[in-house]
């Protein structure tokens, strides 16, 4: 089943949670709604589920307008952030709930629930109560419960948000495999970029109630459409530069920027990812000190190492470029950094392999 969201807006009091949002979710996709708190992703999910009413806009399911259809008639499976398991019912009864309210015959209920218990690897735990389960187990019960009613679409609200890091990783992989097996259209909400990238076929990045960009994980990471997307996904160094006559300039280093052919210079923001920078020891110094012209020609920047920190398998080298107050971070695989063995205070040259330039909002420019 495919879902089409058209021009949905929703405000809570004076807070605009969603602002004219449109989205297509093709059949069989596993889609991630990614964004910071307050971006509207959970609100959008709940509106699709029917747990909130939009102020304006339309929702279509396979072409049919379901905007006014009540949640109980939408045939969505919703997995709540804190699971919302029925605390006084056993695991079995929780999963069976949707079937029981539809007055399904006893044997059908039993067969279905056992099938689902097997699917989510909780065989034999049917008699337990939610309070006797771990977080990961509760999550799987919530999922099984949602699947029991044969929903046309599965919606998950920060499904792994409340779990331990290690459990989260395991369940993520498990959910992806489940989706591959079942092939159900699914949308999940997360603020964790890693989770979105690992799980989803496509990622929708949201901010302040709007969609910033939509694409595969590679697309949004490599070709961010807006500064927000670039900044939100992965780490980034941001600098001030300018654009002029088809080129952007950052610390004297020119970068091709054909989008701005005008001769009037404008301020611009230059975005560099720490792992897309090369770093090398500075060649022996020319007499006379720093040679910025040389840097401009070769496309690299002289800098001094401030400190080196380790983060898991990555070494982060913090440098101060010449003539700048801001720190520049370079990420290297740890082994490479160890072989390089840079010391704080050493002179280095930094060469960006990839640079992105964004112009600030037009309002800021006369």
């Amino acid at each position, binding site marked *: 089943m495919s879902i089409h969201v058209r021009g949905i807006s929703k405000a809570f009091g004076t807070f605009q949670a969603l602002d004219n949002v449109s989205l297509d979710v093709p059949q069989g996709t596993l889609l991630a709604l990614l964004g910071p708190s307050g971006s509207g992703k959970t609100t959008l999910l709940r509106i699709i*589920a*029917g*747990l909130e009413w939009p102020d304006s806009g339309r929702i279509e399911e396979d072409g049919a307008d379901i905007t006014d259809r009540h*949640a*109980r*008639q*939408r045939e*969505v*499976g*919703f997995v*709540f952030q*804190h699971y*919302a*398991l*029925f*605390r*006084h*019912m056993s695991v079995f009864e929780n999963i069976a*709930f*949707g079937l*029981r*309210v*539809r007055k399904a015959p006893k044997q059908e209920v039993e067969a279905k629930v056992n*099938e*689902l218990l*097997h*699917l*989510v*690897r*909780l065989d034999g735990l049917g008699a337990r109560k*939610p*309070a*006797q*389960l*771990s*977080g*990961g*187990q*509760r999550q799987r019960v919530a999922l099984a*419960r*949602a*699947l029991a*009613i*044969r*929903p046309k679409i599965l919606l998950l609200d920060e499904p792994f948000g*409340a*779990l*331990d890091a290690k*459990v989260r990783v*395991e*369940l993520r*992989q*498990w959910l992806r*495999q*489940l989706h591959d*097996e*079942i*092939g*159900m259209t699914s949308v999940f909400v997360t603020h964790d970029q890693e989770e979105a990238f690992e799980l989803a076929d496509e990622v929708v990045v949201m901010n302040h109630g709007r969609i910033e960009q939509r694409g595969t994980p590679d697309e949004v990471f490599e070709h961010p459409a807006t500064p927000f997307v670039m900044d939100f996904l992965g780490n980034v160094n941001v600098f001030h530069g300018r654009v002029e006559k088809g080129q952007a300039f950052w610390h004297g280093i020119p970068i091709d920027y054909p989008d701005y052919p005008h001769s009037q210079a404008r301020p611009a923001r230059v975005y560099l990812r720490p792992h897309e920078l090369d770093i090398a020891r500075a060649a022996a110094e020319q007499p006379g000190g720093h040679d910025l012209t040389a840097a401009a020609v070769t496309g690299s920047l002289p800098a001094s190492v401030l400190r080196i920190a380790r983060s898991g398998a990555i070494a982060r080298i913090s440098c101060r470029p010449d003539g700048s107050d801001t720190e520049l971070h370079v990420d290297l695989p740890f082994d490479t950094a160890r072989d390089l063995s840079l010391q704080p205070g050493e002179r280095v040259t930094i060469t960006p392999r990839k640079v992105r330039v964004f112009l600030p909002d037009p309002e800021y420019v006369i």
Partner: protein
Amino acid sequence: MPKPTITSANPLTHRLLVAAAVGIVGLLIVVPLTSVFAEAFAEGPAAWWRALAHDPDTRHAIWLSLTVAPIAVAINTVFGIAAAWLVSRFRFPGRSLLITLCDVPFSVSPVVAGLALVLIFGRQGLLGPTLATLGWKVIFSWPGLVLATTFVTLPLVVRELIPVMEAIGPEEELAAVSLGASGWQVFSRVTLPNIRWALLHGIVLANARAMGEFGAVYVVSGHIAGATDTMPLRVEKLFQEYRTPASMAVASVLAGLALVTLVAKFVIERRLEAEARELEAARSLPDTIDGSSTPPDAGPHTSTHGPIA
């Protein structure tokens, strides 16, 4: 109740304080309570029974109490559930006013409540003439008793349910809705089991209050012996007639009921505390209670019938 942690203190001071507390409670509560039973059975159980069972007016009073109180409690239970659902699950203008209004019976003297009812339903009241033509009696008759008792016990169930329902939150009910449950199904399968102990607590308290109500019922009933005297009113009438032993006999039944109420209340409160603790624990979810989240090794199993959807 949490166990006290004693800061290093003089055991003598402690003994004195405990003695004082015990003395206060003993003098004010225990002595009177025991004297009811002592006096009631002063002339032996046979006399006690005679006082209760052989006096038609007393028999009627017992019967009347046992009918009026449950009706009032039933009305307040329905009201309590409805009002608690309304207040805790929805937001609407006038919500705070409603909550305050529910507390009014607590702060109004029961006599004032009774008077208000008389002003409406009494012979010279607002609806007096209408009722007279219809031949309905409210004041000086049992409907008035029910109204008065209902008024006085109104807040008891609501005030129990609202905090519990707010603490639990609407998520489970929303989940039920998303799974396709109708309104009644949501209420009966999800909400009711979650509030049952709080509900029971409220009912027990309301019942105790209803059976013991004096002031409002006194005003509304006209205290006609054998017709509109409830048990507390009967106690008073017997007392006025200087039939103290009989009065004590009826009082002892009421006191016995009070003790049963207290025991029930104690038991229910233990359950409530246990549930509150469970709620707290669930809020701060520990991830691996039994040490595992059962790492799914090969991935999810599919049944031999094939995928689900």
